[in-house]
């Protein structure tokens, strides 16, 4: 375990050095991340100007959920962006060299990219998070702070696990350019808003089938003690472990049918 983490840091560090060679990329991606997330906030603000409350959720409550998406997404992008390179790695044969190195192939894939634009997400998410906390008026007790820290630490792992799971489709779809995982990523964006506003089917999908809601909505309910299901938020670590196991399972199934490429 310690060796795995240490090597993971080494690989990411190497990617960081490599990425810094393309400084332009870094700035473009960061600005793009800020703009995308920022637009979402403008959209929210516009809605709440017309309707002050949605299903019992006020503007700043939703901003809190929104900021959690930005934060968890930021961490996933920064630390495990390699999941998104799976289609190219698998279907252009790059996995061959990874498989003959003495380090977990999945961890090598995950650490094969560092998404510096995650910093943009983290900056925006961080400021929204702080602003939201100042406005939601929660009474902070040591217990609540501990719960919040615990739950929030696991939330990014939910996203990382689901990224691995959906990107493993590369082993089956056999194309280096697939929109499949992006489609699910977009589905996950629904979790930026309180999922109680959706119908039953969407709610079940987001909380059980592909539990994207555990990267934002459920942790937020736990922190705010809001809604009838706030206890579910405490299950975030369970969801995180489940998603990571699903991702690992899919990757292993994929390796069994991996066909390499070229000669």
């Amino acid at each position, binding site marked *: 375990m310690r060796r795995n983490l240490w090597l993971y840091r080494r690989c990411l560090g190497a990617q960081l050095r490599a990425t810094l*060679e393309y400084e332009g990329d870094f700035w473009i991606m960061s600005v793009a991340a800020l703009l995308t997330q920022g637009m979402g906030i403008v959209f929210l603000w516009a809605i709440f100007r017309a309707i002050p409350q949605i299903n019992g959720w006020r503007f700043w409550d939703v901003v809190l959920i929104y900021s959690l998406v930005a934060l968890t997404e930021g961490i996933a992008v920064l630390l495990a962006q390699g999941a998104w390179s799976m289609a190219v790695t698998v279907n252009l044969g790059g996995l061959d060299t990874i*498989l003959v*190195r003495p*380090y977990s192939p999945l961890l090598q894939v995950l650490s094969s990219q560092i998404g510096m634009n995650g910093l943009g997400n983290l900056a925006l998410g961080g400021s929204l998070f702080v602003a939201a906390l100042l406005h939601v008026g929660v009474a902070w007790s040591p217990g609540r702070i501990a719960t919040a820290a615990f739950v929030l630490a696991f939330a990014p792992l939910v996203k990382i696990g689901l990224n691995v799971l959906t990107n493993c489709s590369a082993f089956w779809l056999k194309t280096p350019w697939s929109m499949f995982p992006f489609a699910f990523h977009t589905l996950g964006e629904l979790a930026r808003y309180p999922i109680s506003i959706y119908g039953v089917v969407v709610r079940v999908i987001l909380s059980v089938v592909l539990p994207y809601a555990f990267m934002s909505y459920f942790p937020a309910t736990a922190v705010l003690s809001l809604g009838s299901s706030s206890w579910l938020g405490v299950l975030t670590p369970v969801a995180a472990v489940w998603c990571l196991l699903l991702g690992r399972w899919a990757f292993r199934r994929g390796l069994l049918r991996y066909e390499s490429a070229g000669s």
Partner: protein
Amino acid sequence: MARIEADDLRKVFRSPDKRPGLAGSLRHLVERRYSEKVAVDGISLRVDEGEAVAYVGPNGAGKSTTIKLLTGILVPTSGEVRVNGIVPHRNRVENARGIGVVFGQRTSLWWDLAVRDSLELLRDMHGLSTAEYWANLDRLVEMLGIGDLLSSTARRLSLGQRMRADLAAALLHDPPIVYLDEPTIGLDIEVKDRLRAFLRQIVAEGTTLVLTTHDLGEIEDVCSRLVIIDHGRIVHDGGLRQVIETYARERVMHVDLAARPVSLAGIATRLAGATVIEERDGLGVAVTFDPLAHTAGDVLTAIQAELQVVDLRIKEPAIEDVVRRVYAGQLIPGPDDSPDDSPDDSPVR
């Protein structure tokens, strides 16, 4: 001691059977048809410690697929494989510690990193001590002449430089088994010579080497055993000399003549079983003979009895001839299993 043991390895690839064009692709969505391609069809192989094996065959014969099965990259459809006593695809990390792999077509270096950084990452993955790392690196730098490449980014290296850096990366942990898949593709002669000398040295030191190549000089230079594969099956496995004696026994005597001969029939009658053809626009003759039936002296005597010889050369068979014949499809598996009834390309639903 057996380093590599493969028993009846098979690998079948399944690919979608699409008709051409958009209509074909759409049709495939509704009615899925696949064809199976048998890339490796029952290969059994045993390679001992310190052996250098050349693994050759025409394009698409299954060479690279076999290497990928032996290295644990691919999971076999059926059959067993053990390398250093472990099943490679079940225990990839453990397997990777005991092997070094170079794919000629693909680098194992990190594209955007300096070669030195790539090597240090590999050092950490292999868990080498600082002392081991420097001892091995110094040796590789000297043998491969890569001292001035270490600070270059992998993507800036030329093909020959990249190949040498890749070899260093594959051998950094001093693995007992080394697989090289087309390692000298596109390299110039000087670099090739250096690589061959290097390979001879590591083999002499006890490394087990499996080499796939189209370069016949490389085989003769480095390897003592030749495995020929075609249509996914081993068609020959044996010592290099033995192969030549089995498949390329015939020698050819080329003779230059003082004048155009009237007829060559006389020579043919004197040498039963030999073939005589005219060369150099009638001013030469080539006699192909089996040295077990006729000595070179017999052949020369027969020619001189008919014609006036000015000069002569005898062409020894080379491994090249054997392999060329395999490539041309002249060596097929034994008569009992003709390739016609192989299950290639049979559509399944």
